[in-house]
């Protein structure tokens, strides 16, 4: 039974967290974290300014509650990994994360943020809240479209991030229409999609993580966030490489 398997998993998670950075587990999903489109503004920021400002715009799943949660969540981990990946580049990841926030609510604040923070890359996580509240999928797509347009016009590259794979609530939250729309926007606007759903489902299928486990502890969540950060860094790296290989004028 699922419930009984939680304890050994928690122990494993504790062990895993200690050497999470070297954990090879995440890599099994590496083929799902590939940038299909270049990130020219990020490449320019790294090559010309030697400074990379990243903004993570998201809802509850872009952070971890509890003591020290913020430092264990993927934005903070991403900052550490990116800094290692590009030594000599001043890397900073800022978060703008509030739970229960829809894509439209996030989109409203883009203009102000672009002026104030001027990020070269915005990682925009959304979808679950919209699915729970039943926002019209058409409207959701329009919001993503407008948001991506505004961010690009404001000088930022965008990576869209979709929902987490949550097997226990899968029959209760209809996320697929939203995930499909996000994929569509990614293709039409030619911005990379970080397919968190597919990645986590792959981990679940291979037994990398037991996503059914019920626990109050942060260990497993921290490991998963670390893995997400690693794959996200791979994707950003990919996107930068793509734009160096096929340089394209920034409009």
């Amino acid at each position: 039974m699922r419930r009984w398997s939680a304890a050994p998993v928690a122990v494993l998670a504790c062990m895993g967290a200690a050497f999470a950075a070297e954990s090879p587990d995440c890599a099994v999903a590496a083929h799902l974290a590939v940038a299909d489109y270049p990130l020219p503004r990020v490449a320019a920021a790294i090559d010309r300014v030697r400074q990379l400002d990243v903004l993570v715009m998201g809802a509850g799943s872009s952070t971890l509650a509890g003591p020290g949660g913020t430092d264990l969540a993927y934005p903070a981990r991403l900052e550490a990994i990116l800094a290692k990946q590009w030594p000599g580049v001043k890397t900073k990841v800022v978060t703008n994360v509030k739970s229960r926030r829809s894509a439209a609510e996030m989109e409203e604040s883009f203009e102000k943020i672009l002026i104030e923070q001027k990020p070269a890359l915005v990682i925009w996580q959304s979808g679950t809240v919209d699915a729970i509240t039943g926002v019209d999928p058409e409207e959701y797509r329009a919001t993503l479209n407008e948001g991506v347009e505004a961010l690009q016009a404001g000088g930022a590259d965008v990576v869209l991030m979709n929902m987490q794979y949550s097997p226990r609530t899968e029959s209760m939250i209809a996320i697929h229409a939203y995930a499909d729309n996000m994929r569509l926007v990614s293709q039409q606007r030619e911005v990379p999609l970080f397919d968190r759903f597919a990645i986590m489902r792959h981990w679940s299928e291979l037994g990398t993580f037991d996503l059914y486990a019920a626990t109050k502890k942060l260990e497993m969540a921290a490991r998963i966030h670390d893995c997400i950060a690693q794959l996200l860094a791979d994707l950003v790296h990919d996107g930068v490489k793509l734009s160096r290989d096929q340089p394209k004028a920034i409009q």
Partner: protein
Amino acid sequence: MAPATPAQRDLRLDLFRGLALWLIFLDHIPSNVVSWGTIRNFGFSDAAEIFIFISGYTAAFVYGRAMLERGFIIAGARILKRAWQIYVAHMFLFVIYMAEIAYVSSSFENPLYHEEMGIFDFLKQPDVTLIQALMLKFKPVNMDVLPLYIALLLGFPPILWLLQKQATLALAASALLYALTWHFGWNLAAYPSGSWWFNPFAWQLLFVLGAWCALGGAERIGRFIRSPIVVALAIAYLVFALAIVMTWHFSSLAAYVPKWLGEAMYPIDKVNLDVLRIAHFLALAAIIVRFVHPSWPGLHSVWLRPAILCGQHSLEVFCLGIFLSFAGHFVFNEVSDAVYMQVLVSALGIAIMCAAAALMSWYKTIEGRSPGSRSKPPDADLAGGEA
């Protein structure tokens, strides 16, 4: 047992509605390997189109006769009674859904899923949630088909009347409503936000088309549908849809879809019943009409009997299927979601649906034979499947 119906009863309707009910059940279990074999993974349309079209067909077949024999008021009253039955069935399913999320909310905790736990907020304010559900505004996942069916039946009496007087005009009016819906973006509001997942103003087109076919339309266009050109076009379109859908499953293939085609085609809108979906359903229907003849002896074989039985008790079997898909997901959560388990749960679910359908047929036979029963039950149920 074959229902006591006139000879023209088309068993193909029951067969394909039964199959659609199985597919709906399989598709509603999330992350089920067996659902990879359902038609939505091979084309644009899915079981919902089949279900709604055949429901329109049988509704016209059953209530159309009642309207001719006993007039508008009696037939209209019966249609409304049917809508009420479906409403009650929907509320019953809603209670089961609430029980499921209440159970999961009390047994599941993981800081990773803080955001997903938002779904349990509905439990915190039952005063609002329950009332919105009673008004068919709050519709949990996978519980959208019955409200659509209710809405379609509520609007059906005048449409049926018009179909009998001026069939072509009725169909044209339905198409006009569909077009206006797309143009103006009409839909019914949902709770807590957004609108209906199956827009009744758009989906009515398929329901009315089914009704139109039942009232002589099928005969009128029969020769055209069976013509080699139409069949060839249908096959070509099905192959095209299959190729496009494959690019969704294998993203490496997506590059082969020309950009202009993607821009013209996407998004393929299920909420408003995209034209591409209708075309896909019609192509499927044309192939079936061409290759499965109503007098095909296979329709009376033992092997197809389970599906036909399910199709003849569609409301009960539909509800049971939704319940079983909840239950199946519950088993995945609590016991195992190994592949053998997914296959087992899927097969067992279909077996239970068939057993229930057989049981209901049996009930109907004993009720029909018992002395002192109503002279001739005029209900939709007995006229060969339900409306």
